[in-house]
């Protein structure tokens, strides 16, 4: 059973807002809050540097080449990076970021002995600098981590080069690009376990495909909030399910900026969903709203988990697809 917690992409941007403005304005940009998952074009390619140094040509950010004086060994990561890279044996000297205690994100990665230099949206730059890292890996762009202010990113990139996690448009692309990053940092990308996870993923895809073909159910990827229902049409996870034969319903994302579709609660029942995949869904899921509770899929308890983030590995997605396939098999048409 997957144990997901809501991916707090919304909160991340809010934290940045919090530093500068009051709570009253906090959610003024509520529609923009979930906007940290947009992908960029990918042209994965990796090459070595010259003159003793090495260069990472980023696999999914076109034209981004990151130079290192020598092969980087001391690496600080955010927990998203570690959740993906630990499978390849890439170990950090310190961690920071969100969801470090989320079992779904971290999987079997044991972080108890790893130093923590930041929690959620905060980081101790002095602690970071003392570690003299060769590289910092995390979710972000060439300019730095997604949820740090510009000035914080300027500070951390003075400490060490920042390597953004891949943001390819497809799950397969992200897994492959993450593997390239792992390879660059000395990870074992051809181990038996990795080969097995690839096979598991293919089997899970088939299992989901078989289940959804039999049932013909509509799925909606959601993130419910008091102010409105957010839907994940167009996310890589939704695209994967669609490729495998699922019908994904929900509001399209706005044309610019925000990858989340926005559905006023009044309109929630106009999307004929038989299964609701809830970002961060777990056994202690506690969201409640009268119009949410009235949705047919909620009343039928046909709820499952998804996450717009989490470990970008074949084993993680194999497990997720198997869970969703099981949910599909046990669900009925209610929309």
């Amino acid at each position, binding site marked *: 059973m997957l144990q997901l917690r809501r991916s707090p992409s919304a909160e991340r941007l809010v*934290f940045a807002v919090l530093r500068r403005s009051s709570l*009253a304005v906090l959610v003024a940009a509520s*529609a923009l809050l979930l906007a940290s998952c947009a992908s960029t074009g990918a042209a994965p390619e990796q090459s070595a540097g010259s003159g003793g140094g090495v260069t990472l040509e980023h696999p999914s950010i076109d034209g981004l080449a990151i130079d290192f004086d020598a092969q980087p060994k001391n690496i600080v990561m955010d927990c998203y990076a570690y959740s993906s890279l630990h499978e390849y044996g890439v170990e950090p000297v310190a961690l920071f970021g969100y969801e470090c205690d989320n079992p779904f994100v971290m999987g079997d990665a044991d972080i108890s002995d790893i130093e923590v230099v930041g929690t959620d*949206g905060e980081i101790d730059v002095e602690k970071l600098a003392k570690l003299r890292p060769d590289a910092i890996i995390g979710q972000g762009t060439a300019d730095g981590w997604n949820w740090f202010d510009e000035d914080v990113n300027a500070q951390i990139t003075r400490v060490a080069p920042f390597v953004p996690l891949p943001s390819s448009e497809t799950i397969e692309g992200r897994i492959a690009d993450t593997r390239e990053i792992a390879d660059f940092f000395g990870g074992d990308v051809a181990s038996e376990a990795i080969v097995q996870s690839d096979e598991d993923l293919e089997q899970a895809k088939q299992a989901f495909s078989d289940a959804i073909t039999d049932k013909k159910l509509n799925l909606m990827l959601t993130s419910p*909030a*008091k102010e409105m229902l957010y839907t994940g049409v167009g996310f890589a996870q939704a695209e994967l399910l669609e490729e495998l034969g699922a019908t994904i319903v929900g509001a399209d994302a706005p044309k610019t900026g925000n990858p989340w579709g926005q*559905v*006023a*609660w009044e309109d929630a029942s106009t999307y004929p969903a038989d299964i609701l995949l809830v970002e961060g869904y777990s056994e202690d899921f506690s969201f409640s709203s009268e119009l949410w509770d009235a949705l047919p899929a909620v009343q039928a308890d046909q709820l499952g988990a998804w996450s717009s983030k989490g470990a970008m590995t074949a084993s993680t997605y194999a497990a997720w697809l198997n869970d969703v396939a099981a949910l599909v098999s046990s669900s009925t048409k209610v929309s």
Partner: protein
Amino acid sequence: MPSQPTASVSAPNTSLSGADPRASAASNSSRRRWIGLIPLALLCLAALASSMLVGSRSLPPADVVHVLLHPDPADAISQTVWLSRVPRTVLVLVAGAALGVAGALMQAVTRNPMTDPGILGVNAGASLAVVVGLAFFGMTDISQYMWWSFAGAMITSVLVFMIGNTGSARGNPVRMTLSGVALGAVLSGFSSAVLLSNSEVLQKMRGWSAGTTASQPLDATLAIVPFIVAGLILAMLSSRSLDLLSLGEASAVAMGAHPNRIRIVALVAIALLAGGATAAAGPIGFLGLLAPHIARMIVGPHQGWILAYSVLIAPTVMGFADVLGRVITAGEVPVGVVTAFIGAPVLIYMVRRFRVSEV
């Protein structure tokens, strides 16, 4: 058109023969104010009707009326009307009236036309209480944290009063306002400190902290109605005393008033009103500032009339703002955001276009 305060502060009628022109003028003013309530009431009804009829989901008015008369829990339209539009409309009326009157009271007590529940720290207190409840006491939904918000608003009001209105310089309205601003800043700082290190709490209170009428169950709104009714009654009973207070501490005392007692009663009313409204709808800015200003421009510095007009003006503004927020984007813009967006320009326009009345 601003006018002078009437009965409670005007000179007694000493004329021995015929009608006193001042009494006659006061009577005419009073009649005009009563008549002025009619279009305002109609506007308020229009706002409430639009809240029932207009939403992100397009429903024919006949269908809305039909399901209002014949509710069907299994029908999607009936669910939309009964689980969304009815609770929102009731909330607009209740929270709007409460915030409007709370703002008017605050401006009267502090003798400062630029105060509202936000300035006096009430919103910050309510927000901190919600943050604490979510972060440390395992609250999960609005029916629980609503009462924390209420308690936070009440406690903050009392603290502001104690800090700003005790000691040698008590009665100084500037001191009380500054106390509210300072305490609000401290409380907001505590909230931010918790939120910055707890993304789950931030996620949970995101919608509430924007000030929204969405997803608020009718039961939860009805639960605060008794507090708001009590606050409204206290406010109305205080209106004559507040008129005396508006003349200044010394004049009020000379006319037999007890300024501190007046402030305490008003503060209890403010706490009930602002606390109740903030608990139900989250911190909604500008409404408590805007409504009394509009009222004062119409009726002049007469607290009773300002309160009465604010009861109608605030839900009217909040109702139309909420409806605008529902249709302006594909999702929704919270009413707290819309009131700020439309309230600020309207206030600036009024300040430039008309003479701003003193409190």
